[in-house]
């Protein structure tokens, strides 16, 4: 049964016309072995099926969505269980997500970003305003933009992954040492670019001042800052170039979601045209995953199974009355628990 968060996400995605993608728990192992570099972790639970074929418990849903699309555009969402390592053991994790397959134009890109931002609000404390000092942020970066920044500063190709790691850690002192080691000028600007965490408009303005040569590659983000207003999510968007992620997976826009009270990213996504291309599909792709277990481990899920009414009985007569009254209430759409009075007291005192 879906909890309140899952119901909210499902309602959100369906309100944008996305169709639910349902999947089995297993896929042929070769799907993951051929696309290992697209997975968050290369470690997979495998087993031999009764027909001798090697199967895997799904560590990821996106691969299945793209495989099943058969080259047909579509807007899909999922709510599934995946099996991945966590704290040195395999774990069963709940994950939701959105995949938009087809031409990745300005509208579809912005719609997916808006859905990601609105997904965060499904978990956010309604008492805290979104945006500055608020309950959730969607952190945006762009791999082409980051590449242009590195090229503008003359970072050698062989050192780019080292600098990416320093950006990911916002390691300003490390960037100073890096620049000294490779003879790169402009360490102050690179340090500030790594530290950037600003509302998207402000961030793009500062980026233009610090690295004018990279501005043409910021066009996608600039467009997004305009169209985000249409979806009412502009306040949640932040430019943050430490959001680099899996460079083999994404090829353009990339984003992460954070929610107050959860110490880890609860959402990650971006444009991933390389995956359909590898599967021989001409489609573009943009999407994201929501890590429901991270949310529930930190802030719990609102309880939605609590009955509206509790009817107690302690003899045959009160049992009959309770049963009849419960039928009436249920017919009126109420959730009703009927229980023996003594046992209810016992369970209630244990809960207390």
């Amino acid at each position, binding site marked *: 049964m879906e909890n309140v968060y899952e119901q909210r996400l499902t309602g959100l995605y369906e309100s944008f016309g996305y169709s639910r993608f349902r999947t089995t728990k297993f896929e042929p192992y070769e799907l993951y072995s051929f696309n290992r570099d697209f997975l968050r972790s290369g470690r997979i639970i495998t087993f031999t099926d009764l027909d001798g074929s090697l199967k895997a418990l799904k560590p990821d849903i996106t691969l299945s969505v793209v495989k099943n699309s058969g080259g047909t555009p579509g807007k899909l969402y999922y709510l599934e269980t995946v099996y991945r390592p966590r704290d040195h053991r395999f774990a069963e994790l709940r994950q939701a997500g959105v995949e938009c397959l087809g031409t990745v134009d300005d509208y579809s890109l912005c719609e997916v970003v808006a859905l990601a931002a609105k997904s965060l609000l499904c978990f956010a404390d309604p008492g805290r305003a979104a945006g500055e*000092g608020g309950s959730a*942020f969607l*952190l945006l970066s762009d791999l082409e933009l980051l590449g242009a920044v590195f090229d503008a500063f003359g970072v050698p190709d062989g050192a780019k992954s080292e600098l990416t790691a320093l950006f990911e*850690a*916002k*390691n*300003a*002192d*490390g960037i*100073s040492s890096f620049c000294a080691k490779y003879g790169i000028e402009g360490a102050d600007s690179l*340090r500030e670019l790594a*530290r950037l*965490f600003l509302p998207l408009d402000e961030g793009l303005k500062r980026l233009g001042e610090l690295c004018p040569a990279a501005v043409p590659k910021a066009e996608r983000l600039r467009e997004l800052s305009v169209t985000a207003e249409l979806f009412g999510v502009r306040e949640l968007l*932040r430019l*943050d170039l*430490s959001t680099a992620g899996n460079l083999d997976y994404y090829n353009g826009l990339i984003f992460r979601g*954070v*929610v*107050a009270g*959860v*110490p*880890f*990213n609860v959402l990650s996504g971006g444009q991933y045209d390389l995956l359909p291309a590898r599967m021989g599909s001409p489609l573009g792709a943009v999407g994201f995953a929501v890590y429901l277990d991270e949310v529930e481990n*930190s802030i719990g899920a609102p309880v939605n199974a609590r009955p509206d009414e509790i009817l107690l009985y302690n003899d045959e007569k009160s049992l009959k009355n309770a049963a009849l009254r419960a039928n009436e209430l249920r017919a009126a759409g109420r959730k009703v628990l009927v229980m023996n009075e003594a046992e209810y007291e016992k369970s209630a005192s244990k809960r207390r």
Partner: protein
Amino acid sequence: MISIALPKGRLGEKVYAMLEAAGYGCKDVLNPGRRLVLYDPETDVRYFWVKPTDVGIYVERGAADVGVAGKDILDEYSPDVFELADLRTGVCRMCVCGKADFVDPVDRPLRIATKFPHIARRFFDSRGRDVDIVKLHGSIELAPVLGLTDVIVDIVETGGTLRENDLTVLETIGDVSARFIANKVSYRFKNAELSEMARSLGGS
């Protein structure tokens, strides 16, 4: 409120003095008695002392917004945190050490004793050298002296212990110093406060 995890020991005390000088003092931090958590309502900071190897975990999982950990600990355990400032204290080096007449036995795996198996493996993997790593928890210098291993990978401050045991630094893997680290989500929600704290501690 900002929660700060400090490493127990001399390094933590030194860093607390830096934090206090920067305006983040908290009464009784240096004399906590049996109290595990100390809060100062005036500065709105909360301190707790933890084992140096645990600071990264407390920060990564958000129990602390920020903390102080040696670069050796960060490289060994790779917590997913921001490294906001090099505090330039607790300075030492991560080194490969052995006997002065050491000759690399290239016809077999190199045997290494260390408290830092990940750092050692990464370093020798980058050179394609096959190694046999023996994880020890203390008295690392004893291993090559007794023939348990060929060399050790350990932090070296003055080199005094090495000299007393007829060992020497064969190679430096990297520099080590205390780093001011932050939880990645706290950094976003408490951006102004944590950025200011990093600046006041000398972050560039």
